[in-house]
């Protein structure tokens, strides 16, 4: 079986205007992130699927609109910092970075391979452009707090963004970090919770295929509020809502801000949506074809299996 190479494309540059055309552009980027996630995980014969798919619009908005970054100069000192705390969804991050021009899209097919820069969880010693290594859940926000405190001490205007999973918010360290962030009034720190309401295995609900959400409905926002954060709840697949929330987050009210983005795990592929067991799973050949088809990827790009 020969690897299916990803179609090479010029990096998509951020566009200035926020209008329907910009929303369409971000939707298309999110679609391509999903396509590359499915292609890469299928090629690697392993990897996380559900979490990267739920985060696609959020990652598209961050990397193509929100973050002040220079893919050609990944160590630019004044760049905004981004910590991907839900590190198991690394392939989603890698897809967004590749599309943004950090490295060739074709390199995504090295995901999980020996000597790859694209490790199963993000490794900042391997891949330029990663601001922190993550993988052990619950740690990223602490690193983000350190970056925001460091930026403040250094008098830098940059912002720090941290993306977490909702299951990850069961870790105590998240709340240690949330407490300290609000204690220091880190108003240039923005957390984004990919609230897809499923964790890897979780608590069983009405039957073997049904799982209860990591936090009871409405509870997660209340927890962040109790820790002194400004909470913005939104539809994490609505690019206009996402941009609006990030825009609001950039207007300081003296507190750190968390976006609780309601999403669907496995979003974009009908048979994966809201199914906890698609957290990680190897696709059968017919599942791969159907997934690509549903994502609107031309049949010829799918290639022969």
């Amino acid at each position, binding site marked *: 079986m020969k690897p299916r190479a990803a179609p090479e494309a010029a990096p998509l540059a951020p566009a200035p205007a926020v209008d329907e055309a910009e929303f369409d552009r971000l939707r298309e980027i999110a679609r391509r992130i999903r396509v590359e996630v499915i292609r890469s995980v299928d090629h690697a014969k392993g990897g996380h699927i559900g979490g990267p798919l739920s985060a696609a619009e959020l990652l598209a908005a961050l990397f193509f609109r929100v973050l002040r970054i220079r893919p050609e100069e990944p160590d630019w000192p004044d760049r905004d910092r981004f910590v991907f705390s839900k590190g198991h969804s690394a392939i989603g991050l890698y897809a967004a970075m590749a599309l943004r021009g950090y490295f060739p899209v074709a390199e995504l097919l090295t995901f999980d391979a020996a000597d790859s820069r694209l490790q199963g969880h993000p490794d900042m010693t391997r891949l330029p452009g990663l601001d922190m290594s993550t993988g052990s859940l619950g*740690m990223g926000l602490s690193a983000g*707090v350190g970056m925001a*405190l*460091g930026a403040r001490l250094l008098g830098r205007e940059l912002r720090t963004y941290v993306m977490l999973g909702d299951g990850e918010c069961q870790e105590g360290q998240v709340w*240690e*970090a949330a407490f300290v962030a609000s*204690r220091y009034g880190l108003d240039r720190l923005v957390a984004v919770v990919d609230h897809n309401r499923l964790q890897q295995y979780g608590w069983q609900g009405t039957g073997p295929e049904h799982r209860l959400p990591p936090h009871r409905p409405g509870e997660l926002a209340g927890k962040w509020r109790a820790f002194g954060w400004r909470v913005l709840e939104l539809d994490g697949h609505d690019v206009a809502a996402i941009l609006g929330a990030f825009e609001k987050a950039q207007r300081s009210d003296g507190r750190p801000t968390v976006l609780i983005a309601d999403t669907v795990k496995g979003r974009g592929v009908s048979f994966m949506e809201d199914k906890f067991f698609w957290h990680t799973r190897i696709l059968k050949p017919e599942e791969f074809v159907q997934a690509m088809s549903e994502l609107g990827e031309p049949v010829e790009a799918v290639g022969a299996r």
Partner: protein
Amino acid sequence: MTLPMGRPMREVFGETVSDLADEDPRIVVLDGDLGSSTKADIFQARHPERFLQMGIAEQNMLGVAAGIATMGLIPFISTFVSFAVVRPLDQIRVLIAQPGLNVKITAGYAGLFTGMAGKSHQVVDDISIMRAMPGMVTVSPADDVEAAAVIRYAAVHEGPIYVRLVRDATQRLFDESYRFEFGRAVVVREGRDVTLISTGAQTPRVVDAAELLAAEGIDAHVVHVPTIKPLDEEAIVTAAARTGFVITVEEHTVLGGLGGAVAETLADRRPTRVKRLGIQDAFGESAPNDALLEMFGLSAARVADQVRGLLGAA
């Protein structure tokens, strides 16, 4: 004959890191609500804007230090060994050691002396844990003079480093002319009959034990190992060859610490008879410092007794 007392390493820590910060604007101190115990309060008084109170939340504190280090600042962590190493161990592993970030874990209350706090605060296995971690450096100074030098070194060391500091005043081994060399062991007494190897505040007690033994005609060779990782293997091999019998002594478990490192080295490079003295797979307890040293066989007199017994049995 007995070595004099020095100053508490914790005071030396507070003063030295403050002095360093006078010269280097990148230095910051993170405190886990123990500044009045670890003497990070000295730093707060001198550099309030660079003193970051992290509260009683050590897993977060280590992670914040990692984030701060990525910004080009130099964070010093200040809390007890129990909360600087054992509690946030996975944070050290994933956020500091794996990325190789420039975080200084300068932990107080190393060893048995915890103001009688007892076993919850006495970490007997921190050397074993930290030396086993890839990418981590472990340094255990002997006295206040060496502690100051090690803290100064930590600031210029590129990458993560773990420094063990003792709470209370301990004996002074070195004078002000001493120059700490990272990764190098130091012969602190020349002898022919047996090689004693020690680290941290135990070394001065071993030197005193060697003097007790000298009065009985036993001429001990004493090596101090401040840097446990990377270990000065050449010095260990040379010291072993000198007498053919090595006894390690540490205020720490005998499993995997200095004794383990020495035994591994000699097994690989120059098989030599080795005996490991120290805490024999046990936790500590609350007691006055002298009582603890007696209890675990670490006072000068008890070390001399054990060495004498081992030589008699040889």
